């Protein structure tokens, strides 16, 4: 039998993460977080975020030891306040003076590399494993070259360079991470990303085009009167056209997620370390749809169950291959970083991770 991790060398051993969290336990943490967040009009959300993350980190064991997260809730709260203020100004000014949006977007693009660097640095420096902190070492200048420079290329090629950009961006994020003084390295072949994105696009079209055509046909029939919806189901007419697009999108999203994670981790290595990821696009899709249905049918109460289930599946398909027993060392020059960039990123739904 061939394993997706490839053959292990003589001195290598396979380390699989163990996840001890349960949906019941996380449900209690989640609902209490939600309760205190609402009761304090959002202030507790910073503490809630830390508790949630500490629960996930503490429940994940790699080679016998769990992770630790020690971000200060107060730093996160400050970040959130700044983010909410900027969001409020953006939303109001954008509505009242529609042209001001362009100024916001321009500022957003220019500040983006700085935001990414600070957000990743905040997160990694507050994450630890075996008493050693992680770090994100890139400078804003390096990030600017990746994000602004490459985005310009993507725009100039009318999006054709997008898979190449994703490959570079992911490689950049991973290879600038360090565990103590040990750096991770990552080289991603862009042509493999093109393969992933082309297949994802075909998947999207395969589901969307027939669906939209069918709906268009039915809509036409409805207007010429040969098919009609009862008045109380008239809202379906507005939901149905969205459905095939959403389904197609979700499937190709899951496909990209699974395949690019697998590819990415197969190319990451550190001193005495390499990784393997074996997500199945089909299973991930099923997982996502199951989550949507469960969450919608339970009025949100199954959100924790969905989160734990997804995490469990992802971790079960992740493994680390360790050669010998490497010892990693502390980086003495780690300075604390503020949380506002990370919170801004969260707020404007900027996905900076991999």
């Amino acid at each position, binding site marked *: 039998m061939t394993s997706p991790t490839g053959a292990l060398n003589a001195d290598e051993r396979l380390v699989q993460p163990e996840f*001890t*969290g349960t949906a019941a*336990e996380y449900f*209690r*943490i*989640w*609902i*209490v977080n*939600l*309760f205190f*967040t*609402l*009761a304090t009009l*959002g202030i507790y*959300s910073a503490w809630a975020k830390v*508790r949630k993350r*500490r*629960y996930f*980190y*503490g*429940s994940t064991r790699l080679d016998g*030891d*769990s992770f*630790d997260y*020690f971000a200060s809730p107060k730093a996160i709260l400050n970040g959130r306040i700044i983010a909410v203020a900027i969001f409020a100004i953006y*939303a*109001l000014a954008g*509505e*009242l*003076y*529609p042209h001001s949006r362009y100024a916001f977007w321009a500022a957003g693009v220019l500040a983006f590399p700085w935001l990414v660097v600070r957000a990743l640095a905040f997160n990694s420096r507050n994450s630890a494993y*075996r*008493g*050693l902190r992680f770090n994100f070492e890139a400078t804003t200048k390096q990030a600017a070259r990746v994000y602004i420079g490459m985005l310009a290329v993507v725009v100039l090629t009318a999006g054709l360079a997008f898979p190449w950009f994703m490959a570079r961006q992911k490689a950049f994020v991973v290879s600038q991470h360090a*565990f*103590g003084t040990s750096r991770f390295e990552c080289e991603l072949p862009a042509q493999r990303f093109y393969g992933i994105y082309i297949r994802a696009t075909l998947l999207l079209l395969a589901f969307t085009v027939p669906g939209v055509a069918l709906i268009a046909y039915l809509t036409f029939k409805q*207007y010429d009167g040969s098919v009609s919806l009862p*008045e*109380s189901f008239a*809202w379906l007419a*507005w939901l149905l056209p969205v459905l095939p697009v*959403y389904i197609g999108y979700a499937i190709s999203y899951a496909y990209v997620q699974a395949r690019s994670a697998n590819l990415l981790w197969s190319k990451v290595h550190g001193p005495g370390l390499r990784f393997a990821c074996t997500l199945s696009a089909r299973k991930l899709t099923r997982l*996502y749809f199951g*989550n*949507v249905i469960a*969450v*919608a049918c339970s009025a*949100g*109460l199954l*959100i924790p169950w*969905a*989160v734990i289930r*997804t995490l469990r599946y992802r971790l079960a398909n992740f493994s680390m291959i360790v050669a010998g027993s*490497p*010892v*990693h*060392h*502390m980086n003495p020059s780690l300075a604390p970083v503020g949380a506002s960039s990370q919170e801004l990123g969260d707020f404007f*739904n900027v*996905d900076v991770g991999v």
Partner: protein
Amino acid sequence: MSVIEAGYFDGKSSLKRPVGIVVSRGRMKIIGRDLEQEFDARLVRRSLRIANTPRWLYLPGGGACVTSDNAAVDRITRERRYERVLHKWESRPAYAALAVALVAGMLWLLVDRGVPVAVERIAEHIPVEAEAALGRETLRALDERMMRKSALPGSRQDSLRAKFADMARAAGETTPYSLEFRQSFIGANAFALPSGIIVVTDDLVRVSRSDGEVLGVLAHELGHVKHRHTMRRLLEGSATALIIAGVTGDVASTTSLAAAAPTLLLQTRYSRDNEREADAYAVQMMRRADLDPTYLARILTRMERSSGARGTRIPTFLSTHPQTREREALALAAAGETRGPQRGKEERIDFTGLWKEDCEQLYGLQFKPLEKHGVYSVSLCGPAGCLDPGTYRPNTTVQGDPTYDVLYAEEILIKQPRGDSTSYVKCASEVMPELPDR
């Protein structure tokens, strides 16, 4: 004296060493092979307890110990009060159940009371001038994409403008507005834009049978202007986004459709509230200007028909007039309210049930028996529920009330103030939502 088994990391390397921890007389000793350290126990920080995840003890000097023995860590270090409270809440199912109930209650309070009140307060404080740029911009965008110059003769426009100005004056209304006539494929419609711009389509003027009807629609739109609905909708949108983000924060990426549905529900809910407010305002304004509110009701029906027939019904979320029948009934009710109920001879007929012109209709009247025998509260109901109890008539005996002409228990004739009458039939009550006791 007990020994706690733990792992020790010196913080300089990832090497783990098994150690034992002993605490006595305020001193914490870490003992392992080739390792013995002693600290003032008060200087040792510990991580907060979360479920049964391993606990960390952060030692002075950068080292750390980790152990799964949560109870022992609680024993040897001083626990802060909020830690104990949080852990109690997070570990007991009964508290989780309580939290579910409290969260549901608080969300309801927030959505039903908090947001509308906050939004109203904030909207009041935003000067109308701030909306000017947005109003101009929106009108320009609509002119480019959906509307053309009005084909109505200038004299007709001027006469409608003058009549509405007279009506506003008669009603004592000083809210600034500007009236724009446009031609558009959207059919008979009218809508209010930010900064008090009211747009009326030519088709609306065309389907109207009298100027009173147009004035009724304008009064409704002025209601939107007066109550700052465009500003409120904007603020409600932001508030909704914040609530949804707060509640579903950690699954946004995997279940975005699940998050979209409640957003839509919340927004349409607020929009319906705004429509009701504008309706109530229109009826009030028309009565103050001595104009029959049933004008509004009648043109709403015709507008619905005119847009429905052309097969270009705009979706509810774009339309400013979503629930014609409910609103038609409201105006009729307001008109009917001017006369007091009259007692007649009492004959026992059960008036509970939904009364509609025909049972396929979504909107109708509900007769709810009151405590006093033979007296009913009549309300207007639609798919969204019933308006306040007694919106049509707070208490009536029906029999002997000059508004009603009871034909027999299954059919009733309702006399309209202008001499017309509408026949209603009794429909199965399951079709109808319960009358909420508000």
